[in-house]
């Protein structure tokens, strides 16, 4: 499943990463709308990318954000690139959590999920605005961004644990002497 990385570790196969991202994108457009709460659906791709960023660092997180974002943009009717850019920005924010002193804290996934959700939605609205799409800032923030952040917070741990399972099965193996 893995291959040898630049530092001698085993990294996740590109095929597995692509399969995970495609599955997530399909789930995001088909199953997640059925799990909508307060009029919004969970941002599964965002949570997967944030979880991966926390577990593997900002660099791998950004790669996943790029792949996942492009898939979402392909499936979305919105301006192309809006999801990718918002997702990359969110993964960057989440990736900082991997570096900070609270790494390993039980609260870190929740805090990162909430922060990344807020960043994702605000960035998405900004990008829509910049690209000339009509944006309802009040409704967008209060009726979409806020409940979406709350819902993502609820979905953070199940997603994080699922991604952590994948991470443990594919994490780099390094030899220490």
């Amino acid at each position: 499943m893995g291959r040898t990385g630049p530092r001698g570790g085993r990294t996740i196969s590109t095929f597995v990463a692509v399969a995970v991202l495609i599955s997530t994108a399909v789930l995001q457009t088909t199953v997640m709308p059925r799990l909508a709460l307060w009029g919004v659906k969970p941002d599964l791709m965002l949570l997967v990318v944030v979880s991966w960023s926390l577990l593997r660092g900002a660099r791998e997180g950004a790669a996943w954000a790029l792949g996942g974002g492009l898939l979402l943009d392909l499936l979305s009717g919105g301006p192309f690139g809006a999801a990718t850019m918002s997702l990359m920005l969110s993964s960057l924010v989440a990736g900082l959590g991997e570096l900070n002193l609270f790494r390993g804290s039980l609260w870190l996934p929740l805090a990162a999920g909430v922060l990344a959700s807020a960043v994702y939605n605000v960035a998405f609205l900004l990008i829509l605005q910049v690209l000339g799409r009509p944006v309802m800032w009040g409704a967008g923030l209060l009726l979409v961004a806020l409940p979406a952040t709350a819902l993502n917070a609820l979905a953070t741990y199940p997603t994080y644990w699922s991604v952590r399972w994948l991470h443990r099965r594919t994490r780099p193996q390094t030899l220490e002497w």
Partner: protein
Amino acid sequence: MRQAAEDNDLDVLRGRRATLILVLLAFLLAGIVLRPAGYLNPIENLVFGALAPLQYSLGWLGQQVSSRVVAIRELGSLQARNRDLQEAVDRLMIENVRLREAEIERTSLREQLHFKLSNPTYELLAAEVIGYDPSNLLHYIIIDRGSRDGIRTGQPVVTALGLAGRVTSVYVQSSRVLLLTDPSSSVSALIESSRATGIVRGQGRGALSMGYVELADQVQVDDIVLTSGLGGSLPKRLVIGKVSAVRRDDVHMFQEIQVLSAVRFDRLESVLVIQGFSPID
């Protein structure tokens, strides 16, 4: 001497036994004679009174043992029966879900048929919703009909409850539909009763607003809002919704009208594409 003593004891024993038998026989005879007259009742009461608790206890114990024995004996068959019943419950549950889904589908198809019958001029194509936009901030759906089914960009998409949106992208096997609720959606509309015209825009989260309605125009809550057909992008007289609130003041040049659509935009499962209409864009 010793033999004589033993014979004597034996005789005594036989004598006592004979006496006991005689007494019992006498009691039997007396019972046969006296019982019909009820003279044995005191003795019977005494006997039953003394034996009843014992009978009750032993009866209860016997019952318990018997039921345990039966339970143990039937354990194998009970497990099999339980398994059969569980299978039956599972089967019925699946059947129930299937029937409920069939009922929902039948209701949806009946509504679509009703819409088709009441709009004979439209050439309608039924389509299933196969996906929603991944973003919460955008309102699109993906339907399972594409260019090979004759779908073209701009064609209106409706449900039995009213206008849902317009086709914005067409692929071979699927199409993307912009829902009325998306902030980038705008539709020329009119109030059915007063014929006042305006533009219905999406507000996100299922809300619609109608703008550019002049202050002089009479608009009441519950008035029906229809497509006006102006601009040629949509056919006339498609139901959009009904007025839920009207706000007018001297500061603004136009009335601000809230429109409530009966369409559940977040729960769309099947839609109809109006194919006989060519939008002018």
